[in-house]
């Protein structure tokens, strides 16, 4: 079976960066990408009144909060981001021992709203498939859009992102590690090749 994005992400997150790791985005790059995504979201949807920002735990939630901060500044009103845990909707639950649940927090009723899902890395698309299922049971949004910091390709489902921080062509043996100050002490995106 092809490794899913989350398996790769989980592995990458817990292997210390070795010599083969290559930083592709630094703090400045991430900040600029998020600012651009914020403006793109506002431009596409004209204003923020019908928007609900939902991050996918764990790093997607931090990114969603940062985008909400930037959006609050631009729109001059407080916009809060929520969190959508997708654990119970995963398609690989039975392949691993039961996992701990993450916090779900929906700031607003999503019926008739435009929901923007925010995640760190888009890979197989299976996480987003699960997120769409989860949303379905919370209400009926007018539209769902997807914003990701990194799109690394290798989709296994017909899913694409509306807003992308950086397209990062990778090979399947490579790992993408997103570090954010909220959890990892620094802001960086690195690629680690299969150790030679």
């Amino acid at each position, binding site marked *: 079976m092809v490794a899913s994005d989350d398996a790769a992400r989980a592995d990458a997150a817990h292997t210390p960066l070795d010599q083969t790791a290559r930083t592709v985005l630094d703090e400045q790059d991430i900040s600029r990408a998020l600012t651009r995504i914020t403006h793109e979201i506002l431009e596409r949807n004209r204003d923020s009144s019908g928007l609900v920002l939902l991050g996918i735990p764990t790093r997607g939630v931090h990114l969603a909060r940062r985008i909400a901060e930037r959006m609050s500044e631009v729109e001059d009103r407080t916009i809060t981001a929520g969190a959508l845990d997708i654990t119970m909707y995963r398609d690989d639950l039975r392949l691993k021992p039961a996992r701990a649940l993450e916090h*779900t927090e929906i700031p607003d009723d999503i019926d008739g709203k435009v929901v923007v899902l925010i995640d760190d890395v888009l890979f197989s698309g299976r996480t987003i498939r699960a997120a769409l299922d989860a949303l379905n049971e919370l209400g009926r949004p007018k539209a769902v859009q997807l914003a990701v910091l990194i799109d690394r390709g290798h989709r296994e489902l017909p899913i694409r992102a509306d807003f992308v921080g950086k397209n990062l062509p990778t090979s399947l043996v490579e790992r993408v590690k997103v570090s954010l100050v909220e959890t990892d002490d620094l802001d960086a995106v690195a690629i680690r090749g299969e150790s030679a």
Partner: protein
Amino acid sequence: MIKNLLSAGDLDRADAIRILDTAEELLGVASRPIKKLPTLRGRTVVNLFFEDSTRTRISFEAAAKRLSADVINFSAKGSSVSKGESLKDTALTLQAMGADAVIIRHHSSGAPHRLAQAKWTKGAVINAGDGTHEHPTQALLDAFTMRRHLTGSVGGDLQGKNVTIVGDVLHSRVARSNALLLDTLGANVTLVAPPTLLPVGVDHWPVKTSYDLDSSLEKADAVMMLRVQAERMNASYFPSAREYSRRYGLDTTRLNRLPDHAIVMHPGPMNRGMEITADVADHVRSVIVEQVTNGVAVRMAVLYLLLGGAADESTTEDSSTKDRE
């Protein structure tokens, strides 16, 4: 995580907190427009009840259905058990039908252990109350309710909280499970009962005991009243119901002597007027109805953690997923 839930004593601190934290997230499902998660779709959960029960069976049934499991209800009345079928044959029948989990309530202490140890069923065994022995999910929902009211912190325990459990400890599986679990979570448990209603060997439990209710009210953070289990009493344990009620019943006078933040709990079913007066049972500080709501979330958490993942844990995968934040 353990495979079966037979005793509250099998849970270590990490497991117990994991169940409570999972329940905290699952509590939100009850307030959604669609109260269902797809997680246990295609799994079969059998409610094997040899003893009467309202809330525990319905609670487990609701929990399993909210996780999309198929539920088969079995009650001894009206089944082949009344024709003399043994526990073993009943269990083998259920196994042949493909039960992924068996939730068992039995009038004999130790029946769930027997079911799990003898490997009559391949599924997970969850103890829903065995005789006068244990009722671990009740203890978990009590601890969950206490944590929400007394500390309010996800990820935390009940360190230093004083819990007073009052009444028929001798016949209570709830008291034993609570004593074990609350000790694991760091709470100080005091059992209050007439000497005749304290079990032999209670001095080996991780609790303090007292014969006097009034002396243990002032510093209690939670008071749990136990039902006087008349159906299990084949001897005279106290002179009269009135005398029991006067010495060990919770009335408004006693309620007023509790600290302001203290909560009143009861595992149900209540004997109003016996161990608890109607005024106290319906008081704002009574969390008895909330305990039932929390029971569904806690049982969903137990079912999810026992059945939601891979059937046999491979250690390598375990280490990588455990570390995920």
